[in-house]
């Protein structure tokens, strides 16, 4: 009982710290996940918590929801153009990274090549969480964010499979390349098959059961179930979750009611927030600075190896894929982001923790992994924003900023006028003062309206965007009014459900229209180079 209470208190404490960090980062220019690692590190130095971060904890509890959520939200339509290049980075790219890192680490530290390959594999998986959080905050093109997430999702699966094969070879001292090749495909394809089967089953059930609570529960069962079933069958759990998430997110929810869909999306957004918060806090808490200090040279070698291999793989393979087709190549500016944004996180941490203690140089390998994770999250993670600005990927067009400015000024003028009217009604403001001030506001408003009209004359698409935005807000207001009427008992369950479903469908239709309008305003791949 006491142990249970201690665990509960610890979870509450971790969530509390994560929440406080989330509040604090709103005021500082630092990615949430990076801030969590730093806070975890500070706590670990000042007052270490009694937490044992096991690989099972990360791989069984946190990885399935993190991967499922990312796959579930990944819009394959946006990934279509760059999919061949992304798969090239995620499969041959991971194999090349593994070998490149292993080579440099062997040369720099004297580790046996077989052991260095284990390190190369565990550090090959990129983690998009910190990077995508920065993207969302800064409004980076959606297609770029999707490319980064896509690469990461697929390379997680590849890296874990390669890691297992490399670990068996390092421990047993025997490696047959032909067997290794077949093992790789067997584990990878097996995992995908499990994800496909379970994802299809869940999608069918979600489409048939019109109950938002059961549908949401099914997705949780799917995320954890696909992982467990695949692992039981000795195939890739991560790839099973990736495929199951992609299937339900892109096809499965199509049959669900809008209410169920909205519930599932909100649920997974929240679960991913909690899982991410705890994982990155635990990374910080689990870092042993004295161990890192003792292995400073191997860590430095590992960092150089990881950064150099990322550069070689991203630029080399992107260049190769650009030779094939003009339509599928990754724009040059995106390559810089893919290179510097190759952060490492939860998967590398879990794999490093899962290294058997009997493996020679275990401590050194673990320190190297932690050192690289820390360097990429803090060093690269904090400078990514600068890079995005330098590359002009977060600059919004002048006319969009202009519309925003006019809107803001117009809203402020409207509020000012309302306040003046109130003061006059309350008898605080004399009529003649009100008249003089009011006339001034009317003039400001009409000149702003004129300027906005002039802006719309040159950029008529802004007018359409405003129209879509206004319609969406009107629908949301209608939805809120229905909820109020239902709570007050003015509407029966049946009528409320029917009307709410109609509004939800309309909101969904507006989101699709908006996405279609925006995607047509985005340059296609390769444009803007």
């Amino acid at each position, binding site marked *: 009982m006491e142990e249970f209470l201690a665990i509960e208190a610890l979870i509450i404490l971790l969530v509390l710290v994560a929440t406080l960090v989330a509040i604090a980062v709103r005021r500082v220019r630092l990615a949430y996940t990076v801030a969590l690692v730093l806070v975890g590190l500070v706590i670990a130095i000042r007052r270490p918590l009694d937490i044992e971060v096991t690989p099972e904890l990360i791989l069984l509890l946190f990885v399935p929801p993190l991967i499922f959520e990312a796959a579930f939200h990944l819009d394959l339509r946006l990934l279509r153009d760059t999919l061949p290049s992304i798969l090239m980075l995620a499969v041959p790219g991971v194999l090349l990274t593994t070998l490149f890192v292993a080579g440099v680490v062997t040369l720099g530290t004297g580790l046996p090549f077989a052991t260095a390959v284990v390190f190369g594999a565990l550090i090959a998986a990129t983690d998009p969480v910190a990077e995508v959080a920065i993207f969302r905050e800064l409004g980076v093109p959606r297609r770029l964010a999707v490319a980064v997430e896509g690469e990461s999702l697929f390379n997680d699966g590849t890296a874990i499979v390669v890691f297992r094969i490399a670990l068996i070879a390092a421990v047993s001292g025997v490696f047959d390349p032909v067997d290794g090749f077949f093992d790789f495909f067997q584990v990878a394809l097996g995992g995908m098959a499990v994800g496909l089967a379970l994802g299809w089953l869940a999608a069918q059930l979600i489409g048939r059961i019109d109950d938002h609570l059961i549908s949401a529960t099914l997705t949780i069962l799917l995320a954890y179930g696909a992982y467990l079933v695949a692992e039981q069958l000795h195939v890739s759990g991560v790839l099973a979750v990736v495929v199951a998430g992609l299937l339900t997110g892109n096809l499965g929810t199509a049959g669900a009611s809008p209410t169920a869909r909205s519930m599932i999306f909100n649920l997974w957004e929240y679960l991913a927030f909690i899982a991410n918060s705890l994982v990155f806090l635990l990374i910080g808490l689990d870092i042993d600075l004295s161990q890192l200090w003792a292995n400073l040279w191997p860590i430095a070698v590992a960092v150089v190896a990881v950064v150099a291999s990322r550069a070689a793989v991203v630029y080399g393979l992107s260049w190769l894929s650009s030779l094939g087709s003009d339509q599928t190549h990754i724009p040059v500016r995106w390559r810089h982001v893919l290179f510097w944004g190759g952060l490492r996180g939860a998967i590398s941490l879990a794999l490093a923790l899962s290294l058997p203690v009997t493996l020679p140089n275990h401590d050194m390998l673990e320190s190297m992994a932690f050192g690289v994770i820390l360097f990429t999250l803090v060093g690269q993670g904090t400078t990514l924003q600068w890079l995005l600005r330098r590359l002009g990927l977060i600059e919004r067009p002048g006319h969009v900023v202009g519309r925003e400015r006019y809107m803001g000024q117009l809203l402020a003028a409207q509020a000012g006028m309302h306040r003046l009217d109130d003061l006059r009604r309350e008898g605080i403001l004399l009529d003649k003062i009100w008249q003089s001030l009011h006339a001034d506001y009317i003039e400001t408003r009409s000149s702003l309206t004129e300027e906005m009209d002039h802006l719309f*004359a040159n950029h*008529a*698409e802004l*007018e359409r965007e405003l*129209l879509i935005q206004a319609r969406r807000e009107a629908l949301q207001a209608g939805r809120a009014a229905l909820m109020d009427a239902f709570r007050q008992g003015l509407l029966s369950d049946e009528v409320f459900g029917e009307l709410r479903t109609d509004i939800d469908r*309309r909101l969904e239709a*507006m989101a699709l229209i908006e996405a279609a309008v925006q995607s047509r305003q985005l340059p296609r791949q390769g444009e803007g180079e």
Partner: protein
Amino acid sequence: MKPIVCATRGGEACRRNQERAIDLAKERDAELIFLYIVDPSLVGPVKESLAEVLNDEMARMGRSLLRIAQGRARERDVVAQVAVRYGPVQQSIKDYLREVGASTLVIGTPRAGTPPRIFTPTEIQRFAQEVYEEMGVEVVVVA
């Protein structure tokens, strides 16, 4: 006088397109019709239960855009009609031109350097040529 049809979708070129159509209607003292085509295929495939509201919302957006255009024409003393039709954009425009026996079609093309919306500039030129050759309707492409 046969009517002038101005096909509009609210994109970057639509304001210039509408102004040009209003100018032409004034010059020729012709009837002006603003046309909006609801083509859900531009949004991509959607499930059946959503198709109806998607059509409805697109038509609603179209009507709003057409009312704005109509108001602009009114400000310049031109009385304009509006029409919403459903189907693939190019075919629906052609069908409508036949339906009203239009003399002229005014259609916009994005400025150089801006990404294409529905048609690329080349496609618009090809479409304009096709309309002229098939139906003898004058096509004014506003850049």
